């Protein structure tokens, strides 16, 4: 049984319907809202599996169904659905992880008064995300891209009465929107040059060779190929959405949202949308690879940004004390990995890592959620500790997630996907930087995850909340166990010996043999050694002698206080932006505002020019000086009117007499001038 591409719209439509139901339900409609959401998600999961089944039958085929959104008289604006293995795998992942997280939320959000609204927003998000995946048009993708941004905004700010949450929501929306402006410009440029935004359209789509050849043939400013310029602009959107340097600042703050939201949106799915975008547009991004004479290739930029982000995220994660922020920076770092993989040409490896990461990162976040739920919303790892015995199920699954993330060899999925990326980076000839950055991040990841586990679960409880933690209910534990299973099993879909997933994604024939398992063994050994070193060091600093109290100093901070302080402050990125971009905006606003008032004065009266000079600074001054000019002009008119009014004596005889005299004068003038 398969789902044909014509009916692919059902997958996003089901959660959308659930969101609509949730939106009209009253606050008390907790059960219907949640059951609608979960049922819709379950159905979407089944449909996604059917779609995958269909897509795998012919993996090289891009099945499309295009239709006109609206007609302008001169050609319609087209949208469409696309079914290929990339879409299908992503849909299955999103619906499955989403379903588990929905179930988990039943427990986590049990006591929240806005339970129904939460499920409404979650369903809205799922709908938008799935719409993004099945889109066969960059425009539809962009629309859903913005809608996931909206859902993210609503969910980060779910507890909007907390100023921090409200500010984080705004920051997330604005930062991603900054990237989206690049996306929009790229989209417009692409539309303008290609005349279409459909990905695949029987030879006329923008990802098909005919159009791509046209795009690479033109050069624009700086000698860039047109496709490079468009690709880079589109990549801006991915940078914003996927939290890549330099627009990564919003992601850690987004942890102000409820933890299931962090798991679903800011770890597993939405932030991976940028990676998905680049993977989807891979033919476009890679179109300039054949050109030798261009200053830079689009993918080179992607690889370098990814490398920087992977390293930066891992470094900052070392010094974070909030359990969710550690995971957030780890997400930044892992997304950097994926970008790196895309940049070095291994887009299938990137998607492989995306899928494995989605499962184990969702697992980690839900585990963190379980801890937070149990410990009465205590998130600071310095004040946790000793939860190993109190939360055994959470502990076990969390450690599986940690091992997968750290890349513990052979058994865990993260190892295989990460190896695939490192292998590809090793083979990249342009620059060794991605490989080095990737290897460094491997060690750092192992280190900070060990730190996180040791601080949270080992030692003794360091706060009353931690001491009285109780294991979460089954509705929260079962998703953890399922995700943990996936975190292990999924890796075997893409081992070098049997790269089924990669082959299916690329639509290539599968060549599996056990001999390939240890291909590039030297690199694999090196990375295993680095993982071991990271875990060992982490255990040495944090595991062997757990900290005694919440106030005790961090062992690393004791060794190098300045470095750790800088890292804890996230290397000052936020401050830097506040000082530059924020200031710039404030300045532009002041100039615009001042100019406005200035023009007012100049245009209307031309009076008070002197006052304006200082007036730009002070608002009140401005109002007085400039609008004063307008008033002066008005007063002048009124004065003239008053002097004229004096002639208006109110004596009827006077008027009549004036009339007569005027008539006589007029007659005399006419007579003297000679009447014709």
């Amino acid at each position, binding site marked *: 049984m398969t789902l044909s591409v014509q009916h692919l719209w059902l997958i996003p439509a089901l959660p959308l319907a659930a969101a609509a139901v949730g939106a009209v339900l009253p606050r008390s409609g907790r059960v219907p809202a949640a059951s609608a959401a979960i049922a819709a998600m379950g159905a979407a999961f089944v449909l996604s599996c059917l779609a995958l089944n269909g897509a795998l039958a012919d993996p090289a085929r891009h099945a499309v169904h295009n239709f006109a959104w609206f007609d302008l008289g001169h050609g319609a604006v087209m949208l469409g659905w696309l079914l290929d293995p990339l879409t299908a795998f992503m849909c299955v992942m999103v619906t499955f992880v989403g379903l588990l997280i929905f179930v988990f939320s039943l427990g986590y959000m049990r006591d929240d008064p806005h339970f129904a609204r939460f499920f409404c927003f979650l369903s809205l998000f799922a709908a938008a995300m799935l719409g993004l995946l099945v889109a066969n048009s960059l425009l539809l993708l962009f629309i859903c891209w913005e809608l996931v941004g909206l859902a993210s905004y609503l969910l980060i700010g779910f507890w909007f009465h907390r100023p921090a949450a409200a500010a984080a929501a705004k920051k997330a929306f604005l930062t991603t929107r900054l990237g989206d402006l690049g996306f929009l*410009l790229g989209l417009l440029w692409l539309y303008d040059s290609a005349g279409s935004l459909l990905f695949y359209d029987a030879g006329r789509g923008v990802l098909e060779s005919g159009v791509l050849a046209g795009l690479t043939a033109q050069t624009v400013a700086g000698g860039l190929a047109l496709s490079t310029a468009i690709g880079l602009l589109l990549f801006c959107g991915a940078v914003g959405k996927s939290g890549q340097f330099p627009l990564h600042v919003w992601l850690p703050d987004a942890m102000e949202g409820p933890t299931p939201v962090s798991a679903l949106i800011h770890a597993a799915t939405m932030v991976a949308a940028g990676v998905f975008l680049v993977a989807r547009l891979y033919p476009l991004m890679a179109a300039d690879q054949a050109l030798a004479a261009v200053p830079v290739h689009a993918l080179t930029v992607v690889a370098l940004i990814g490398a920087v982000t992977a390293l930066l995220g891992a470094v900052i994660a070392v010094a974070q004390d909030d359990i969710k922020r550690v995971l957030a920076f780890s997400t930044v770092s892992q997304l950097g990995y994926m970008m790196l993989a895309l940049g070095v040409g291994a887009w299938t490896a990137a998607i492989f890592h995306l899928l494995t990461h989605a499962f184990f990162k969702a697992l980690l976040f839900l585990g963190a959620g379980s801890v937070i739920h149990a410990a009465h919303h205590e998130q600071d790892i310095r004040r946790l500790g000793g939860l190993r015995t109190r939360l055994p199920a959470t502990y076990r699954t969390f450690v599986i997630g940690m091992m997968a993330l750290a890349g513990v060899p052979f058994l865990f999925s993260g190892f295989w996907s990460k190896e695939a990326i490192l292998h590809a980076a090793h083979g990249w000839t342009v620059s060794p930087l991605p490989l080095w950055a990737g290897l460094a991040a491997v060690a750092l990841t192992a280190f900070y995850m060990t730190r996180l586990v040791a601080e949270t679960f080992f030692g003794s409880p360091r706060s009353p909340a931690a001491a009285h933690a109780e294991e979460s209910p089954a509705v929260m534990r079962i998703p953890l166990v399922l995700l943990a299973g996936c975190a292990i099993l999924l890796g075997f879909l893409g081992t070098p010996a049997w790269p089924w997933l990669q082959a299916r994604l690329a639509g290539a024939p599968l060549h599996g043999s056990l001999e390939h398992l240890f291909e590039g063994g030297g690199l694999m050994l090196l990375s295993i050694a680095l993982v071991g070193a990271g875990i060992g060091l982490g255990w040495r600093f944090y595991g062997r002698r757990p900290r005694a109290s919440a106030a005790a100093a961090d062992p690393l901070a004791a060794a190098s206080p300045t470095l750790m302080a800088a890292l804890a402050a996230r290397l000052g990125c936020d401050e830097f932006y506040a000082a530059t971009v924020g200031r710039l905006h404030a300045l532009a606003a002041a100039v615009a505002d001042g100019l406005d008032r200035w*023009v007012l004065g100049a245009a209307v009266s031309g009076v008070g020019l002197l006052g304006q000079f200082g007036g730009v600074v002070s608002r009140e001054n401005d109002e007085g000086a400039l609008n004063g000019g307008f008033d002066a002009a008005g007063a002048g008119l009124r004065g003239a009117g008053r002097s004229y009014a004096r002639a208006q004596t109110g004596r009827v005889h006077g008027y009549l007499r004036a009339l007569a005299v005027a008539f006589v004068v007029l007659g005399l003038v006419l007579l003297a001038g000679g009447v014709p």
Partner: protein
Amino acid sequence: MSVLLSLLVFLPWLGALALALAPRLGVSASRRLALAFSLSTLGLGLLACARFDPAAGGYQLVERHAWISALQVSYHLGLDGMSLLLVLLTGLVSPACLLASWRIERDVRLFGLLFLLLQGSALGVFLALDFFHWFIFWEISLVPAFFLIKLWGGPGAPRAAYQFFVYTLGGSAFMLLGFAAIHAATGTMDFVALAGLGGSGALARQLGEPAATLVFLGVLLGLAVKAPLFPFHTWLPATYAEAPTGASMFLTGVMSKMGVYGFLRILWPLFPGHVQAHALPLLWLALGGVVLGAFAALRQTDLKRLVAYSSVNHVSYCLLALFAFAAAVPGRAYDSAQHAAAFGGALLQMFNHGLSAAALFAGVGILEARAGGRRGLGDFGGVRTAAPVFAGLCGVAMFSSLGLPGLNGFVGEFLIFRGVFGLAPWAAAVACLGLFATALFLLTFWQRVFHGPVAGAAAGFRDVSAVEIATLAPLAALMIVLGVWPQLLLGLINPLLLEWFRQFAFAS
């Protein structure tokens, strides 16, 4: 010959007359009567919509009677896709304005009377096809607007009203002079006839240089003040801020469209050559409106001023599309898809902005009413906690204004950007700045007022009443519908786009 259009124009005036002749009408009855007459526009507009054949092109449901034969003036009403769009907009926004003014207790009868006068004259502007009565409607609209602002406005209202009146009247005076010259040269003031002359270049020849340029500038000035085009917008923030909520809604929702309508109906058809020759500076001005309007909004602390500046920003998008099209003409082959996108986008944006800006003003009006006249950015906090339904409706309007896909604002802005990018890429790039600043100030507004702990005037904030829901909900629902299904409106204007394309493409 149908009298539908005359009915459309004069039924609100008839309503005003009815109110004028019923001095003892009670407060509630006055409100209802005014609302009923105001709703007539929507009903008749839909009727016109049903009778309108989009495929036919040209003006439909035309009414034409000789009027003043000495001046060759005729009473000439007609409807094309653009007029229809704006008539529908007026029909939607006007009842909402009256509903938003439901809480006014003082001189309700006079308020309704003036408002219906205003509504009728706006409809007259959208339907008249002869400059003579077009201008009468255009000027008459100022009078009720002036009194609405002056009598029911805030503390600074008298000055704002005078400023509004003098500024716009001053602008129109030049336009009148221009048309006097046109009439002297051609002997007609009929738009259809003049458009024919303008399209063939005969109008400019008959006027001769430099008279033609002067006339062009005069007409431009009159329209630029009304629209407003940067830098002639300075009357706007004070006026919108001081006007009562219903009047602000109408001013931004409908009257600002009168200016843009004039650009499309008069300036361009009559002076295609001049528009093209001056398009580049005009394009810069429109860009200035987009960018500076958004940034100026960022600095406002008065919510009404903030929304007013956002209005400058949004209306400038329409003008941006028009001028980008004009600027691109010399030395560039036409790409009809870009042209269609730019114009279609401009028309949609007019409609969309009418809805979203009116809804935003209504929202601010509710805030102001609840807070006893305070409407500073810092006077509120956590309104969403206190009034979730209100917050939801305002949120739809805000995100529509911000251009979020899925809501109506996006479609228009996307088409505008699509067109502008193809015609003047740098302008689109610069305008993106405005897009970002819009998001910035709207989200700041949203965060400060609706989020955070309940503070300031939000304490004891009641959620929306039935009347307020009736004001906001239809607008919000339409925003969603039009965001998903823009064909609903585009179907009305598509043939018009083709027609314009033929006209303008060969006018130069």
